[in-house]
């Protein structure tokens, strides 16, 4: 009989891990709390830097899961340590004995309303990056006006923000803002688009080219300065205050739409999951790996592995590569090599 491995979380990390385990000859059991696979990526429209369709990425991952046991709409009741492995009790009543568990529990988007000064949930035309993707996917959103003349993006909402309790850079928001700014400019060529940033952290393949495109070909304005407060005008537009730090002058602008780049924060549900099997958290709230350099997919506990953003913000290609790496670590472990 093939060895069972429980993979918790059916986002791209869990899917790729399960697919890799499958091709290594194991019997992965993929457990997903929601009613669909794909996690955050499934609610995205197109992905940087090649504007790949998110649905296609999910579809190709799904195709590779043929033969894996997938439980949707299923949570974890508890995980108990046994002498030689773990007993994982699922909320659907299924009890699994497994020598290895992979946590692919992902992240949460920062709750934008907590940055009260930006007025998310209060002003009529303030949305988040994820609301915008939903709109790109064809979802209705009355907050997006029919013909906006000016649109703003606020980078680092809840990221690199000690006061919000998150010191980490969310890594993907700078490039996401640029991607979304370009997409909006394509839809509304007459609109002026402003990105308010602290630093632009564009580290990935082709990201800088994307930025140059946004500047040169789309005329998107980049203003170095964090938005300090947002107000609503009598006509319902929002007015944004920031400092143009390169000019050393305060700047204000009225906008028809303001997009908040909500950052990546740790998944708070990890706490319940790790009740019986204590797993340490890092200062940033994410799961602590055995080693941040050479053992990112290894937990400090024998038989428990990590894949994807449960250990910190990551891009899709990084997550996929890490998922494969986690599968190989599980393989080595089950073969008695680690």
């Amino acid at each position, binding site marked *: 009989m093939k060895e069972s491995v429980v993979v918790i979380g059916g986002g791209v990390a869990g899917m790729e891990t399960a697919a890799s385990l499958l091709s290594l000859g194991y019997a992965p059991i993929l457990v997903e709390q929601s009613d669909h696979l794909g996690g955050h990526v499934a609610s995205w429209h197109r992905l940087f830097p090649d504007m790949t369709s998110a649905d296609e990425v999910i579809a190709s991952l799904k195709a590779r899961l043929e033969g894996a046991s997938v439980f949707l709409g299923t949570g974890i009741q508890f995980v108990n340590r046994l002498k030689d492995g773990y007993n994982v009790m699922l909320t659907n009543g299924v009890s699994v004995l497994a020598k290895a568990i992979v946590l692919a529990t992902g992240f949460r988007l920062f709750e934008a309303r907590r940055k009260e000064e930006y007025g998310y949930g209060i002003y009529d035309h303030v949305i988040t990056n994820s609301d915008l993707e939903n709109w790109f996917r064809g979802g209705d959103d009355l907050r997006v006006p029919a013909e906006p003349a*000016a649109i703003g993006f606020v980078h680092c909402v809840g990221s690199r923000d000690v006061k919000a309790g998150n010191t980490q850079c969310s890594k993907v928001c700078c490039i996401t803002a640029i991607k979304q700014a370009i997409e909006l400019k394509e839809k509304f060529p007459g609109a002026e688009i402003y990105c308010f940033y602290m630093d632009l952290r564009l580290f990935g393949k082709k990201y800088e080219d994307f930025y140059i495109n946004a500047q040169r070909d789309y005329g998107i304005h980049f203003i170095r300065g964090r938005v300090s407060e947002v107000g609503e005008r009598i006509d319902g537009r929002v007015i944004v205050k920031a400092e143009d730090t*390169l000019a050393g*002058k305060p700047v204000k602008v009225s906008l028809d739409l303001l997009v908040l780049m909500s950052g990546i924060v740790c998944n708070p549900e990890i706490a319940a999951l790790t009740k019986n099997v204590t797993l340490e958290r890092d200062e940033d709230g994410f799961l602590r790996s055995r080693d941040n350099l050479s053992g990112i997919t290894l937990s400090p506990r024998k038989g428990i592995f990590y894949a994807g953003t449960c250990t910190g913000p990551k891009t899709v290609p990084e997550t996929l590569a890490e998922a494969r790496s986690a599968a190989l670590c599980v393989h080595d472990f089950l073969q008695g090599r680690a």
Partner: protein
Amino acid sequence: MDFGFSLSPSSAVNLDTVDLSLFRKVEARCPDIRTCIGCGSCSATCMASAWSGMSVRQVILALQRGQLRQVEQKLSACMLCGKCTMVCPRGINTRNLILAVSREFKKEEAQ
């Protein structure tokens, strides 16, 4: 009535009302100025900068913020040596930019 004090002018730039006419004309001639990242290489290497306040970085920013007097005042100290073009990491043809701005100012003067 003289109160001995009065309303102070605001230094804030209001992007709703900013005059971008010159910027639009200049960017039509040299669209690469949009790719400035404000790194300051141009100003750091500028022969005139330390004495006159000349700074291509600040000129580009002033164009984008509609501060035309600042553009004129800074550029008037340029000696067109071309050193800023040599150092720009974005490959902006700053010499072309400076000449384009001068041309626009000259046109205005002529009118």
